[in-house]
């Protein structure tokens, strides 16, 4: 363990040892597998099971892991090797993470380095190194207000679709802040627990509108007595149909310059009363705007309205996922439950703060950030005494070293 990890582990230990501490494990806790990533050499302890929250807390106090996970799956024998566990079902889970969002602030706070040729760049990590086409990249990310705000908006879209389209129960749904760059949604329901990977992939595709074909939602052109008439979905229709129209409504009320339409088309749409969208069939009521223009708009509308979930998390029916009420070793922030009605006002830079006191650290490099009401940084090669929460964030993010 390096000095930074020693300090982090010590603070984590203090946190977990607090006599008031309680863990809030998921439903049917004894049927799940638990996993702990240890500070010591990044070792993963897996295939553990606990019959109740108390024995789980004892283990956490004992091991002091940097990350605590539980399986979304339920097993007959959670401690058996993977192939013999006996899968009996799994929560339906969704992960929205700034890693998957294209926020404009990324070049300001994220950067990457190719492990093969050493090329570096700012912003989100590319799939392949632009220079040597290698796919092994090192990345340094940061969490910022803007990224988390976008994650929140994606989460709101996700929840709306889960309720009105997928039909999940409010009571069966829990929303969590991940303690890093995003939000998790867990659905604990018999109706969805038996879905297989392929079925979950369909749900993921639905939320992302992946493979959505407008003509299958009856956007089409018909010829009536020589005149071409466009027809399509209407507002108020269920599922993607109404949502497509709502999305076009949003687009018409905002930027239209960079969506691939000619200025004539943009002007035609601007001078048209978009409220007509909300009344009756409108697909043939804008002069100079035909089916191909509408298709472009539908594509944009779908992009705007889809929820940018991480498909891998949703389709993996054996996944280990972060346990709410535990500390996230990437940040020192608490992964925590967010009451859904409070999502809008939830402050991920205030409510998940877990430490008291101060720590003296030497910061290599850090963007400016806010925790609670206080602003910190940017820092560049300087030694500072910071509130523990801020110091821990920098230590966890490998931006600082402790000073004895």
């Amino acid at each position: 363990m390096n000095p930074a990890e020693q300090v982090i582990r010590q603070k984590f230990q203090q946190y977990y040892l607090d006599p008031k501490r309680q863990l809030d494990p998921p439903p049917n806790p004894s049927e799940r597998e638990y996993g702990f990533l240890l500070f010591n050499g990044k070792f993963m302890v897996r295939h553990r099971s606990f019959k109740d929250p108390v024995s789980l807390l004892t283990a956490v106090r004992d091991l002091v892991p940097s990350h605590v996970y539980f399986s979304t799956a339920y097993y007959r024998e959670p401690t058996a090797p993977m192939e013999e566990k006996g899968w009996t079902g799994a929560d339906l889970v969704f992960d929205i993470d700034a890693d998957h969002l294209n926020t404009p602030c990324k070049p300001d706070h994220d950067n990457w380095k190719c492990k093969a040729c050493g090329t570096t760049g700012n912003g989100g990590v590319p799939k392949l190194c632009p220079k040597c086409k290698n796919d092994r990249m090192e990345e340094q990310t940061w969490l910022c207000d803007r990224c988390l705000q976008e994650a929140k908006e994606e989460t709101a879209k996700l929840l709306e679709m889960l309720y009105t389209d997928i039909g999940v129960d409010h009571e069966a749904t829990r929303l969590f802040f991940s303690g890093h760059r995003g939000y998790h949604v867990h659905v604990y329901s018999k109706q969805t627990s038996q879905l297989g990977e392929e079925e979950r992939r369909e749900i993921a595709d639905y939320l992302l509108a992946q493979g959505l074909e407008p003509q299958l939602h009856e956007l089409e052109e018909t010829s009536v007595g020589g005149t071409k008439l466009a027809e399509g979905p209407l507002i108020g229709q269920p599922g993607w149909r109404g949502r497509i129209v709502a999305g076009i409504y949003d687009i018409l009320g905002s930027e239209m310059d960079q969506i691939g339409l000619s200025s004539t088309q943009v002007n035609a749409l601007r001078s048209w009363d978009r409220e007509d969208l909300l009344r009756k069939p409108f697909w043939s009521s804008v002069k100079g705007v035909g089916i191909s223009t509408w298709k472009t708009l539908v594509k944009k509308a779908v992009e705007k309205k889809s929820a940018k979930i991480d498909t891998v998390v949703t389709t993996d029916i054996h996944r280990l996922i972060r346990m709410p009420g535990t500390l996230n070793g990437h940040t020192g922030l608490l992964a925590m439950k967010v009451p859904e009605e409070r999502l809008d006002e939830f402050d991920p830079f205030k409510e998940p703060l877990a430490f008291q006191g101060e720590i003296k650290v030497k910061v290599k490099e850090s963007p400016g950030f806010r925790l609670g009401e206080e602003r910190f940084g940017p820092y560049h090669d300087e030694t500072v005494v910071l509130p523990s929460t801020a110091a821990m964030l920098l230590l966890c993010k490998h931006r600082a070293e402790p000073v004895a």
Partner: protein
Amino acid sequence: MLTRADLAKYPFLNEASDYIKELGISIDDIASPDFSPVLERAEKRLEEALSKGRVSNEFSNENAEILSFPVSNLILSLTGEERAQRRFALAESKRAYELLRQESPEKLDYIARTTFGWKLNKIDAQLGKRFYDFAIALADYLRNSVHLKEPKWKLPNRILDHGFVYATREELARLLEEEVRTKIVERSSRPPGEIPKLLQPKVERTRGLITKWLGVPSHYELPKVPSPESMPPCVRHLIDNLAEGKNVQHMGRFTLASFLVNIGAGEEDIVKAFKPASDFSERMTRYQVEHIAGKRGGRTKYTCPMCTTLKTHGVCYKPDDICSTIRNPLSYYKRKARILTGKGAET
């Protein structure tokens, strides 16, 4: 709700089994000459399914129609031939589909609910030009639609309203066809209890039919010696990348190893394929290959991931014409090998 004529049309229904129970007939009764029409019809079902992939309807003798179906299933299960069981299930489910699509919404609703336990609502909605008679619970929809390839079955292209997927009558019948197929495969592959003597010659005859129409099983098996020319583009690409010392991600490595294990490549050859990798460790590679081959750990032999998974993880590479007909790289290999060895197209 259902008449005997309905049971003759749909002998896989729960009510058909109940009806047979009520008649008090057991499998031993088939020996009686009274039941010869049943046996004849059972054999005809099999012969038609195996030869043409179709089963015709014979409603003139409703009892024979109802009783012959479980007999066909039993004979098939005794052959232990999976290919034949699948083909029979497909033929029977297609036969059912042609009839189901002409049924009233009420009857379809009843069948879906009772025999298959679906949750569904009868609705009467027109959206655009289409009329929707049903809203099917999402789980029931997905279980049956995930195997259908047409884009119209993809969930993003459906109307999904509070956990229910809208469907036309025709579409519901098509989804039921899938459910029927699954049910028949399960039934005909269930190992039977005691084998009635009378059926033994029928089983032999059916085995003959299977060989006649589906060929000798070994023709369908993989070539004994791994054939590099038959490998799909994704696997070749993985091998090329490794050979050039490029890094291949975990999913790519797993795909390659599981593919090679399943086509019967030797452990040495598999390890050799990974040798050019920049981070090659013979010990680790051997360990992992043995794990995938089921010689270690949970002793499960892993199969190759499905094409959909490979697409998601960016392993799929330049799919060709054969790719559009298969769902797993191993099927590609089988098919290509058959073409290359001149065994002709699969029936």
